[in-house]
């Protein structure tokens, strides 16, 4: 007879995730019942309040770590807390970008070019579903890096992905492109999920367990069939590498980055990357660490290819969002060096890098939303020329973010690059150090090209202008810029904090 054990849940530890989910449900209720007029402001308020509350409750439990919070399905530990915190902070500043509704379609259900669409535009409708969708995605992102069994991990992956697929299709301008992006993202994401599930099956076959701990002990015991382990790691990696946008699973990201509303792109590029790398770090550090001879060469190869490919292809881009997409691919390569480092310093530097990169990314996309003409955002790089003359501060902020991406000293990107490459080299990967440094040099080329465009070319009179829609976007860009430079000039408090907390509970 099966003995029934009543589930025990540690609500204090789960609270950050539960609060976000609760806020999301509340948002859905508002969509259903509140009058249309008041929705935008109340949704924004609820979303922000939810995220801040969640962050507060996360800070309250920052010193606790436990793997028993939800029957060993999730593990809360220092590293998980740092990653969840990063996701929340990045989400909070990117929600300000969502508040600028000009980017979103009036009525998602209306066919592009139909009468219905025209009518909705005339009535000046606003989609407010974006807020609860964002919260659901954030909840998934927060669950993803703390999940410690494969089923929960898969559920978290879907919870974070599905709202993003929808959000990607909600652009106000060029709706067909946006919807194409959403569909592409969805289809390729479905493929990746399928691979991921396949990996789960193999790992279950290998270890007769779906928990990370169980897989870990099977790896140590070495009794299972290694072929299954290898296949399991390979397929799980495909799913994760798809999410982080590593070559050769990157094909979706330029199209989706370009097609999606820029505010969504910001969230996707920054927070999703943090979540996906968080999960990746956990599963590789916790479950597969002892089998590193199985996967490390392959991941090193992928890291190298990703860095070089992302940097090289970015040179050829003429669209700022596509350029940032390829740059984010290159950064995924840099971040993979933290995974292969497989050491405490690898983990610490990855977390710092993720946070710094996420903040700068949100800021950069925030600037992209400002450059507009009468038909909406201008993403053609040639039309960005002379931006420094039109609005020096916006251009300076963008240049700052680009310098951070390029890893110039006194920006956060430099500290990130230094620490992650030293961690990789410390663990013996000279190839990563050399390739990383060389591809940074390549990458510097296209970042500088944009700076040249903005500052050293004369503006073209074609109606392109910088529109600051609201205080919200301003807040996002200012906060990101200040953080980017502060973390470059004096990163010590954050590094010390990360150092004292970053550890995975096995």
């Amino acid at each position, binding site marked *: 007879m099966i003995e029934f054990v009543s589930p025990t849940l540690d609500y204090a530890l789960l609270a950050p995730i539960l609060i976000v989910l609760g806020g999301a449900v509340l948002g859905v209720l508002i969509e259903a019942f509140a009058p249309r007029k008041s929705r935008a402001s109340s949704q924004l308020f609820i979303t922000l309040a939810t995220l801040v509350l969640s962050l507060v409750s996360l800070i309250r439990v920052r010193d606790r770590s436990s793997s028993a919070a939800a029957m060993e399905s999730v593990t809360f530990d220092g590293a998980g807390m740092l990653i969840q915190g990063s996701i929340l902070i990045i989400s909070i500043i990117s929600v300000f970008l969502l508040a600028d509704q000009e980017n979103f379609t009036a009525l998602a259900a209306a066919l592009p070019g139909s009468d219905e669409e025209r009518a909705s535009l005339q009535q000046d409708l606003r989609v407010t579903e974006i807020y609860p969708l964002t919260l659901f995605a954030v909840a998934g992102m927060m669950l993803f890096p703390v999940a410690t069994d494969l089923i929960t991990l898969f559920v978290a992956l879907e919870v974070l992905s599905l709202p993003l697929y929808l959000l990607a299709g909600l652009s106000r301008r060029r709706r067909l492109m946006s919807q194409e992006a959403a569909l592409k993202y969805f289809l390729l994401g479905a493929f990746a999920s399928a691979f991921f599930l396949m990996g789960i099956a193999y790992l279950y076959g290998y270890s007769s367990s779906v928990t990370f701990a169980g897989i870990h002990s099977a790896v140590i015991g070495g009794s299972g069939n290694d072929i299954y382990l290898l296949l399991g790691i390979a397929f799980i990696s495909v799913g994760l590498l798809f999410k982080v946008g590593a070559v050769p699973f990157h094909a979706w990201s330029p199209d989706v980055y370009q097609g999606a509303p820029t505010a969504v792109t910001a969230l996707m590029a920054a927070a999703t990357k943090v979540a996906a790398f968080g999960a990746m770090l956990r599963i590789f550090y916790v479950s597969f660490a002892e089998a590193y001879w199985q996967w490390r060469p392959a991941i090193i190869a992928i890291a190298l290819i990703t860095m070089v490919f992302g940097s090289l292809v970015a040179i050829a881009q003429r669209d700022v969002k596509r350029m940032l997409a390829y740059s984010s691919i290159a950064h995924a390569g840099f971040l993979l060096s933290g995974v292969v480092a497989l050491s405490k310093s690898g983990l610490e530097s990855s977390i710092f890098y993720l946070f710094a990169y996420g903040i700068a990314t949100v800021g950069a996309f925030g600037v992209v939303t400002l450059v507009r003409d009468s038909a909406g955002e201008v993403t053609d790089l040639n039309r960005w020329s002379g931006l420094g003359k039109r609005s020096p501060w916006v251009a300076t902020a963008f240049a700052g973010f680009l310098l951070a991406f390029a890893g110039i000293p006194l920006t956060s990107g430099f500290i990130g690059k230094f620490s992650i490459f030293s961690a990789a080299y*410390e663990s013996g990967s000279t190839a990563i150090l050399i390739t990383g440094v060389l591809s940074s040099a390549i990458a*510097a080329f296209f970042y500088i090209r944009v700076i040249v465009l903005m500052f050293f070319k004369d503006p073209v009179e074609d109606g392109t202008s910088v529109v600051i829609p609201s205080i919200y976007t301003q807040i996002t860009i200012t906060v990101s810029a200040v953080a980017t430079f502060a973390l470059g000039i004096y990163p010590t408090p954050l590094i010390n904090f990360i150092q004292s907390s970053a550890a995975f509970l096995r």
Partner: protein
Amino acid sequence: MNILSFLMLLPLIGTAFIALAPKTNVLLTKQIALVTTILVALVGIYMTISFDFNAKGFQFVESREWIPAFGIKYALGVDGIALVLILMSVLLTPIVVVAGWNESEGGRWSSKVFYSLLLVLETMMIGVFASTDVFLFYVFFEAMLVPVYFLIGGFGSGDRAAAAVKFLLYSLFGGLLMLASIIGIYVMATRYGNRTFDITTLSQLHTVLTPMMENVLFLGFFIAFAIKAPLWPLHTWLPDAAKSATPGTSVLLLGVLDKVGTFGMIRYCLTLFPEASKTFTPMIITLAVISILYGAFLAIGAKDIKRLIAYTSISHFGFITMGIFAMTSQGMSGSTLYMFNHGFSTAALFLVAGFMITRRNSSTISDFGGLQRVTPIMAWSFFIAGLSSLALPGLSSFVSEFLVLVGTFTRYPVAAVIATFGIVLAALYILIPVQRALHGPTTPGNENLSDLTLREKIAIAPVIATIVVLGFYPSPLLNIINPASQTIISQQGFSDPAPTMSEGK
């Protein structure tokens, strides 16, 4: 507060005042910049006076934790070599401000931007020479590219954006190679139990490195420095940058920034990797000799006056590098003095060239002619600057060039003999343009050129005075430099070759 930190803080305070100044009041901005740079120069002179010539090691030392997790410190200190270079930087900056009083006005942005960039650059120039923490040095080394980049691209002439980008990409490439080496050092230092970037501690690291490792790390640093102090074949960015930048920026670029390269060779390559330095010396001396001759030949053929000066500098950097890697104390002292003198003679050349170019609106040498008659003071200034550049005895460069050649000859006689041809070529590349531009019949259109204004005279006089005084009496500087170069030579196990007496008959 430590005097070095204070020196670095002053320009930043000036920048803050400039930021507050009203945009319309250009004069006020310039005045703030001038006062600030003069104050910095005075503090710099005071520091030089209070420097203890006889003490060993770094002075004015300051050390604070910066990023303890990586063992990174905000650590400053100077030895004789660094002090001389800081002195040169802080003296040249106010001269640049006076000489280029109107330089900021033809630019893409306002004068406020120009002088803010200039002052920030001054802070970084001091920092890069004063750092005794390898990481801190790297931060300044890379970060100073940004203001220079905007100074060239925003205020230069001609194809300034392209020149600025070329400069930046070359430097970034070198910088990233150096970053790889710094990470290498960091990991090695950690492995051998001392997580630090302190230069004194790291100078013992070479005892535990494998030769292979030391060579690789050395190359990362050396290539970065060879790009900075352009050594053939990594020099191609310099003529473009020097041609496009304003004369004042060019002075700082060639006079100060490029010195970071040669300074780095002494402070980092020789100190951190003595064995590797010895291994690569034959190759580096060869490159240096090629630079000397190649730069000189290009200078002879140059049609543009700014490119001419850039090419002469490539030749001079060849001398400096040769003196450094001769690994003798005369060579080392000579090279350091050479850096100082080159800063001033290049400044003189560039500033007078700048005065000539603004009057004639052309930088082609053949557009000038007969200036001796029309503008005697300007012509004489150029002539003296040129003579200093060709190392005429009695002018400052002669002393340093002689020391370099003597220091090299005791160890590498062949290289020294070949390099001596550089002096002959120098006479050609200076005297030919002097003849074309200053003597002969006055070129049509030049009859009404005005001679130097009072401001221009004030700017150029101290430079020429320095050149002449140091030509006759270089010992104050040599007294500062010599102990430091002897320390470097002896500390890392190099030695001066014993003087050999020829067997008398």
